[in-house]
């Protein structure tokens, strides 16, 4: 049981570092997806540990929300790309003082 949780924690940390390090908005987004996936793994593992399916239902809801989030996020990235001709997170600085 512990090893599943550990794997999920490692994946979550890698995703977090990716969000901090990468500059391409699409890859940053992929790292967010990785973090969501790792929490799903933790949910499923805990569901097996506790012997009920609530964890799996939670993972299902996370997947639904992630799908909606991807649709909106990618639409935002496409519309930013259309005006700025770039997907770099550093160049979306119109609101910078």
């Amino acid at each position: 049981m512990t090893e599943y949780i550990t794997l999920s924690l490692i994946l979550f940390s890698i995703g977090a570092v990716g969000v901090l390090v990468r500059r391409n908005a699409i890859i940053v987004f992929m790292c967010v997806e990785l973090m969501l996936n790792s929490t799903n793994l933790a949910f499923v593992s805990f569901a097996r540990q506790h012997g009920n399916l609530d964890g799996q239902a939670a993972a299902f809801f996370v997947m639904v929300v992630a799908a909606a989030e991807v649709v909106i996020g990618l639409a935002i990235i496409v519309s930013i790309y259309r005006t700025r001709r770039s997907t770099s997170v550093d160049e979306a600085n119109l609101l910078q003082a």
Partner: protein
Amino acid sequence: MITFWILAPLMVVAALGLIFARKAVHAALCLAVVMISLAVLYAAQDATFLFAVQIIVYTGAIMMLFLFVLMLVGVESRESVVEVIKGQRLASAIVGLAFALLLTLGIGQAVSTSVVGLDVANQYGNVYGIAELLFSDYVVAFQFTAALMIVAVLGAMVLAHKEILIVPKTQKVRSEERIRDFAEQGKHPGVGATPGVYARHNAVDMPALLPDGTPLEDSVSAVIRNRQQSLPTRGRHDVADTLSQIEDPDLDSTSAPQIGVDQGSDEQEDA
């Protein structure tokens, strides 16, 4: 457990690939590897429904969407290697390691090793069990996700929608414009002259010649003219050469017309 120990290193390597890949497509492929391995791990943990959903929704729909946007935005675009904030990479690596350590120690201590297992919960089948939960305890949340989906679809449509700034002219409008130009300015309403064809050149970059022998610049495509690849600008010599040959009275009297006449007479004789 064997499944886990085979897949876990693979997943960690693929997840690291997400951080280190220079090209966005490679990162996407790494993420796909992680997601498929996760699906297998779900199956290994008696979550058969989530196994199917993970494959269909994540690797099927979401990764496709990612790749689609990658292709739209430009596959070859590489991100700059310049650090905008000095020492950000090192700092975030240290923070990430510390975070992983903290989580592993904290949660690792809290997790007990006793595993109940899902044999009782899955006695009528995994899908049945999840459906029973979704449509009883979580039915309100389920309804809210339905609303969320509709809002997401509308949001994506609004965000990705592009206003038409210039209404494209229809054929009818353009035809009427042509006739109006002809009536008011005397502009020729028909098809323009095609570029001239000469034996030594491709047709499109040679302007047609007017009856008096001057090149008609308008007959060459505007793209070629703007790039200054049209022959009168690129090599006046050639045109002058050609013109002199055409205007040469000797050539006129000896070669071209006579050949025509000869051929005509030959054909007549043949007939």
